[in-house]
């Protein structure tokens, strides 16, 4: 809610300009939002943010989603529907970042502004712009925090990495590799996880980003090495599952869990000490900025510019923890709860 109000305030000017210039003609600007699923709270929140901003700017928004994460066909069909519908812009969180590129190109060829939200396309310049969290930086924050929290013990860490999927989607790789870099593990090839030679890394398992997957993955890694004392998780549901597995073997107090996302249940778990720290991202902001960009493009053809020094527009990331460490900027869970989504 706070975010929304901040946005309303900060953008009041541009909206007034809009109204004054008479850009809100009889035909409303059409925009599309295509997410991976409409069941994941992250995308539910993203949709809410887009809808609120669209209503505010008088943009006609249609939302589409795949049935399951990875449902590329449904997203292709959605892009085709938007093209037929005469949309001015498409916001997309791609399920398959490489496979969607041809469809995105077809839409852009028709003069539609395509903005990738949350997940960069492969290659990143396949979209006109990308509004996303710097996932590598998000991983790096929890890696640095974990290293500082463990202190000298970090040299003897036994690290379990709970990733997203075997296909290693970009968000998965960036968070994982960011974490390892932040913690001080040599990455090997930074574009994939699993090739590290550091003996501190016990192993990688995939979780599908839910509790069930997190639990099973943690069980498998504990079977491999019962002395694990640091757990990286792709998101907080996976962290909650990992915690159950650790609790089952009585290691919940002695094992540090770090995560990325900043959903409300996740921040509550940080507050309860289940997760040590999490890097919070802002789906509402991604979506509302995306709608603004489409409105601006429809008005005079301006395309959004990336953040200085990066190839995407960084929507920001903040470390949430109640145990701050020197050298890593963070907010406490009270602030994190204010800003959380889902």
């Amino acid at each position, binding site marked *: 809610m706070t975010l929304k109000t901040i946005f309303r305030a900060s953008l009041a000017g541009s909206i007034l300009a809009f109204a004054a210039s008479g850009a809100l003609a009889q035909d409303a600007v059409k925009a599309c939002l295509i997410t991976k699923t409409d069941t994941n709270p992250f995308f539910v929140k993203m949709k809410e943010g887009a809808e609120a901003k669209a209503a505010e700017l008088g943009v006609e928004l249609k939302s589409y989603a795949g049935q399951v994460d990875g449902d590329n066909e449904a997203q292709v069909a959605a892009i085709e529907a938007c093209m037929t519908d005469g949309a001015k812009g498409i916001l997309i969180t791609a399920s398959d970042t490489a496979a969607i590129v041809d469809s995105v190109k077809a839409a852009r060829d028709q003069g539609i502004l395509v903005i990738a939200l949350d997940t960069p396309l492969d290659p990143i310049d396949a979209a006109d712009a990308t509004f996303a969290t710097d996932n590598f930086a998000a991983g790096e924050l929890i890696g640095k925090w974990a290293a500082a929290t463990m202190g000298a013990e970090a040299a003897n860490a036994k690290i379990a990495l709970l990733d997203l999927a*075997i296909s290693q989607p970009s968000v998965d790789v960036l968070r994982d590799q960011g974490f390892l870099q932040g913690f001080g593990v040599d990455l090997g090839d930074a574009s994939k996880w699993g090739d590290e030679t550091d003996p501190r890394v016990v192993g990688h398992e995939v979780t599908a980003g839910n509790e*069930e997957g997190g*639990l099973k993955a943690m*069980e*498998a890694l504990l*079977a491999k090495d019962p002395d694990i004392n640091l757990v990286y998780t792709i998101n907080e549901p996976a962290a909650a*599952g990992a915690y159950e597995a650790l609790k089952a*073997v009585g290691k919940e107090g002695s094992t540090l869990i770090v995560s990325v996302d900043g959903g409300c249940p996740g921040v509550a778990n940080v507050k309860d000490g*289940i997760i040590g720290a999490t890097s919070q991202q802002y789906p509402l902001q991604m979506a509302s900025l995306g709608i603004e960009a489409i409105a601006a493009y429809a008005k005079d053809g301006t395309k959004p510019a990336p953040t200085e020094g990066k190839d995407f527009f960084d929507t920001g990331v903040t470390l949430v923890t109640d145990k701050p460490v020197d050298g890593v900027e963070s907010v406490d869970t009270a602030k994190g709860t204010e800003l959380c989504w889902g």
Partner: protein
Amino acid sequence: MTDNTKPATGFEEGLKGASETVAEFREEKSLVKKIQHWLHQTPSAVPMIVLVISVLVFALLSENFFRATTMSTILQQIAIVGIIGCAQTIVILTAGIDLSVGAIAVFSSVLMGQLTFRFGIPAPLAIVMGLALGTAMGALNGYLISRLKLPPFIVTLGTWQIFLSSNYIFSKNETIRSQDIAEAAPALQFWGNAIQPGGVKVLYAVFLLIVLVAVMAYVLRHTAWGRHVYAVGDDAEAAKLAGVQTNKILLQVYALAGFFCAIAGWVMIGRFGSVSPTASTGVLGNIQSITAVVIGGISLFGGRGSIVGMFFGALIVGVFEMGLRLVGTDPQWTFFLIGVLIIFAVAVDQWIRKVSS
């Protein structure tokens, strides 16, 4: 008969010159035939042999594998798919299929959780309601199949989507956190408790699975109802002519399957701690349970196989998943090998069937 050009003069005239020995069973002496016969009599033998071999192989490949803790972990990992497999087994024995099992399980767990937390119903009552609603979902499948004569595959293909989306809609995609449940409604997490003989943790859920399999093995083999289930699957027409109320049996089978799924839903809360509408079981539970059933030597054409085989089938999958992880292979190999096993199992089933022809 009356058109015969040469009417018989005596009733047995046509038998002249025919063999006069009484019909008898001939014992085949060849080893292959003997094995085939034994496998025919013991449908859980093939999966049991595969299970023993795979355990031995992984024990040789990884030192961490053949340990009590690892074995116990595998058992708890198959607890849910095993219980859903009980539901799938009785359905497949009737030559049907239930694609909605995973969705019923997840929806039941969400119902138990949300009834407790959103509507303030005491947890034990919410569990009973969840079990009843799961049974009702199964009964709906059974009604559509037995009374409206719709094919099971299509009915449950439809209800799978209906139950799964109802689950998302009803829960508003909210997850109920483990610690909130532990604090306010520990009964929901009952099956996540464990005993620890000699430091090896064994979940209540594992005992529940074994008890359910044992009870169902007895019921299917030694009660009239159980034999009727087999009879319906073997030849529904013949069973009907023999006086089996096939429609009633079908309805009961699907309702019971729904009940098992609801139990699995309750177990899910105990095992995962939290109540999550997006649990993978909702989408994959049907495939996983069918896999366990088929690898377990139960014929997809109905009427053949034992529920103990399903239990071994689920264990084989669990052993493969854990074993390959410990050996450190790409997880895709798990699916590759499970696919090979499925085809192997169906081939063995077809081969054994020849014994009766």
